[in-house]
């Protein structure tokens, strides 16, 4: 038989750890409809006492109360208070942090008063006992009228007992915390006469509060009987804490409280000098790891895919479908999977920082600075991670609970110069910036590169400030939050977070990325008209010729018999290779992407760009670094691993009309500014879509960043030329 179990608890109560302990790898992450809140569920089959049970667990967002203060908390409310909801549980597991029992009992009291079958799990009992706190569990259970079970989710203690309890327990609580009719009798009477399905006073009071917030007609009706939700909720909280104090008094003996050691750590971590230095140091490690360490597995993935592509090219029959599979689908998949190391590494750090309690301290010391530009203390980690890659950074914005602050962070993070821009900058800087020393010690090229990073950062800050003035907030921005006690991060929690984020990225954002990659492949490999076909035919001819040359050379080298006169002639080989490169360049020019490049030429001419650059701007949508490869193809420079040949060809490129070099300082800088600001990354677009649950924000972002890029490049070009 199936039993639906919902887990609810305060933030930092160890609810996720318990959920992980109960469900392991069975968990699935989805989204609650309409809000960007992770919906974690898991179906687990357990044999208890020779009977099979199918548990369906759902992990509800952490909350202090059933009166929602944010869209996240709204979700928990809907599931627990509407019996018609398909997730309405058979039993609720209230996860309480035993070291903070008073606050946990507040939420427990609301659930008990709503008359929902529930059990109270006292998590972190070991920690509570260490601090000298003693809880008389039997007495507490008697007083609350529900089962109370001590567990340590971290050490997996008490999990089995909990499962046994959950397999049978479905009793309604035998106790009420408060007399709800005493708080707002007029309102509860009114609600009870309209809704006859439930007779409990607290259900009526709760409904009155909810109806007031969500239904205008009811708001009028309730106003008429003198009902005020804030007053009623305040009164309820006071009454509740009054009762809780009695329970605590009767069931616990208090301990010593927080350790002096934790206070010392806190003093350093939030210190006005050390605090920022430690933060800077940690961010440096995070940044370096995503930037450099991720490089290794990323290269393995790329090489691995390249190997598979080569292998497929050898064994599969030649033709369009093979080409689609190899250069469209496999290349697209490679472009998706290549992000996994960066995502895994960033979430490794985020999980560690969050679990240890450090993240809350970062918010604490950064909040005042970030607030000035409309961001939250929690925006700082995504923003800095954006310097490595915007994709994991945007996925990391879920920890920002205020909608407006979260949207602004998502909108400006892609302006930070990410690692994909580096090859573009490297090529253009070596092309237009002289390699010389200025001011005695500084390399000019290095200074310009640093300037590009700074430019992205400043634009992100400026845009945040502008968006802060433009976007209207939903709900107030709070900073009222708990600074949790320090804990050693739990490896399994870290692992589950990484697992979940990677899975979500691959299956949610991956689809969009793959689709766009295929479209881009079609644009670059097909073209209209006979001319395109002729060029394709030419490539095939010369490719065959090159194959023949290879075979003959090999035969000569190994001393095999030849039926024609042949000596290894390197100049012939080179001329064949040149032919192929020239034709490939011609093919790209005649393809749909090439036509599109020419089509947009009038729009990019004021920025100093020709249609060749136009093609690169289009193909760069797959990823910014594709710019280098496209330039190499266009200029027939072949090998895109090495930037020197393509740089030299670009340097020699002359304007057909004026005869002057195309890549002047003005064009080079204008192009760099364009790459700094434009949203040329479908992976980011896909992730923004997934994280905001609509196409609205990625479209706004695309247009906004495109306009910004165009205007700034225009100004750069016009001033310098």
């Amino acid at each position, binding site marked *: 038989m199936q039993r639906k179990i919902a887990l609810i608890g305060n933030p930092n109560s160890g609810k996720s750890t318990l959920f992980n302990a109960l469900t392991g790898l069975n968990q699935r992450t989805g989204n609650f409809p309409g809000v960007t809140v992770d919906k974690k569920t898991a179906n687990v089959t357990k044999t208890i006492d020779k009977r099979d049970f199918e548990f369906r667990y759902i992990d509800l967002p952490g909350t*202090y*109360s059933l*009166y929602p*203060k944010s869209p996240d908390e709204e979700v928990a409310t809907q599931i627990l208070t509407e019996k018609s909801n398909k997730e309405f549980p058979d039993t609720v597991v209230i996860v309480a942090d035993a*070291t*903070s029992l*008073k*606050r946990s009992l*507040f939420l427990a009291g609301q659930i008990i008063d709503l008359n929902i079958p529930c059990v109270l799990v006292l998590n972190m009992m070991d920690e509570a006992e260490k601090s000298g706190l003693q809880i008389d569990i039997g007495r507490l259970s008697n007083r609350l009228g529900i089962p109370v079970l001590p567990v340590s989710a971290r050490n997996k203690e008490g999990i089995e007992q909990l499962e046994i309890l959950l397999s049978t327990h479905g009793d309604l609580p035998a106790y009420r915390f408060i007399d709800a009719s005493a708080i707002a009798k007029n309102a509860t009477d009114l609600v009870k006469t309209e809704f006859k399905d439930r007779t409990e006073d607290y259900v009526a009071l709760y409904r009155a509060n909810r109806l007031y917030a969500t239904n205008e007609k009811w708001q009028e009706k309730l106003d008429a009987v003198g009902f005020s939700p*804030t*007053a009623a*909720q*305040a009164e309820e*909280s*006071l009454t509740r*804490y009054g009762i809780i104090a009695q329970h605590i008094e009767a069931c616990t003996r208090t301990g010593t*409280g*927080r350790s002096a050691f934790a*206070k010392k750590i*806190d*003093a350093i971590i*939030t*210190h*006005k000098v050390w*605090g*920022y230095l430690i933060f800077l140091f940690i961010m440096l490690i995070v940044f370096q790891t995503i930037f450099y360490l991720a490089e290794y597995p990323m290269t393995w993935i790329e090489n691995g895919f390249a190997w598979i592509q080569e292998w497929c090219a050898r064994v599969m029959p030649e033709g369009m479908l093979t080409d689609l599979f190899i250069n469209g689908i496999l290349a697209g998949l490679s472009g998706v999977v290549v992000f996994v190391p960066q995502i895994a590494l960033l979430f490794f750090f985020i999980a560690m920082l969050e679990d240890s309690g450090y993240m*809350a301290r970062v*918010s*604490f*010391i950064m*909040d*005042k*600075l970030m*607030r000035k530009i409309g961001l939250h203390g929690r925006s700082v980690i995504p923003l800095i991670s954006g310097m490595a890659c915007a994709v994991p950074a945007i996925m990391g914005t879920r920890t920002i609970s205020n909608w407006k602050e979260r949207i602004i962070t998502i909108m400006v993070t892609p302006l930070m110069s990410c690692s994909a821009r580096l090859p573009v900058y490297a090529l253009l800087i070596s092309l237009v910036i002289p390699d010389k020393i200025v001011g005695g010690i500084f390399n000019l090229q290095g200074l310009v590169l640093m300037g590009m990073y700074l430019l992205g950062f400043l634009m992100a800050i400026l845009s945040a400030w502008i968006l802060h003035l433009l976007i209207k907030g939903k709900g*107030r921005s*709070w*900073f*009222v*939050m*708990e*600074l949790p*006690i320090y804990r050693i991060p739990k490896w399994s929690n870290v692992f589950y977070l990484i697992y979940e984020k990677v899975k979500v990225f691959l299956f949610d954002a991956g689809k969009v990325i793959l689709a766009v990659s295929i479209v881009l492949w079609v644009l670059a490999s097909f073209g209209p008209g006979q001319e395109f076909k002729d060029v394709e035919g030419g490539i095939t001819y010369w490719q065959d010729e090159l194959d023949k040359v290879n075979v003959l050379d090999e035969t000569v080298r190994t001393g095999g018999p030849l039926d024609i006169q042949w000596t290894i002639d390197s100049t012939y080989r080179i001329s064949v290779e040149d032919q192929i490169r020239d034709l490939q360049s011609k093919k790209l020019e005649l393809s749909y992407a090439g036509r599109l490049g020419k089509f947009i030429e009038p729009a990019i001419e004021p920025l100093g760009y020709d249609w060749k650059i136009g093609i690169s701007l289009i193909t760069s949508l797959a990823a910014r670094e594709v710019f280098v490869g496209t330039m190499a193809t266009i200029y027939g420079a072949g090998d895109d691993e090495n930037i020197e040949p393509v740089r030299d060809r670009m340097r020699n490129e002359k304007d057909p009309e004026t005869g002057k070099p195309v890549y002047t300082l003005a064009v080079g800088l204008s192009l760099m500014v364009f790459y700094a600001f434009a949203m040329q990354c479908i992976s980011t677009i896909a992730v923004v879509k997934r994280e905001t649950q609509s196409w609205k924000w990625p479209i706004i972002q695309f247009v906004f960043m495109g306009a910004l890029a165009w205007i700034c490049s225009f100004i750069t070009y016009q001033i310098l030329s």
Partner: protein
Amino acid sequence: MKNDNLASLIPGEKAIIDSFTDPELSVKLLEMGCTPGEEVTLEKVAPFGDPIAVNVAGYTLSLRLSEAATVKILRVGNAN
């Protein structure tokens, strides 16, 4: 006893929560255990003076100065 608000405490100073001036915020604070009569201690102040962290109901709560200013307190220990 002097009537004052939570934003005016100095680190280490203790006080008793008296009342709230922002009803919407008070609902949240009450739910989190900041009830009138509860003792609060200012634990620390973030660099640049804002936000602050107080010890209340057995845990550490951080809040912005503007939020703390809506909490009326009764100072302990320096009764006139």
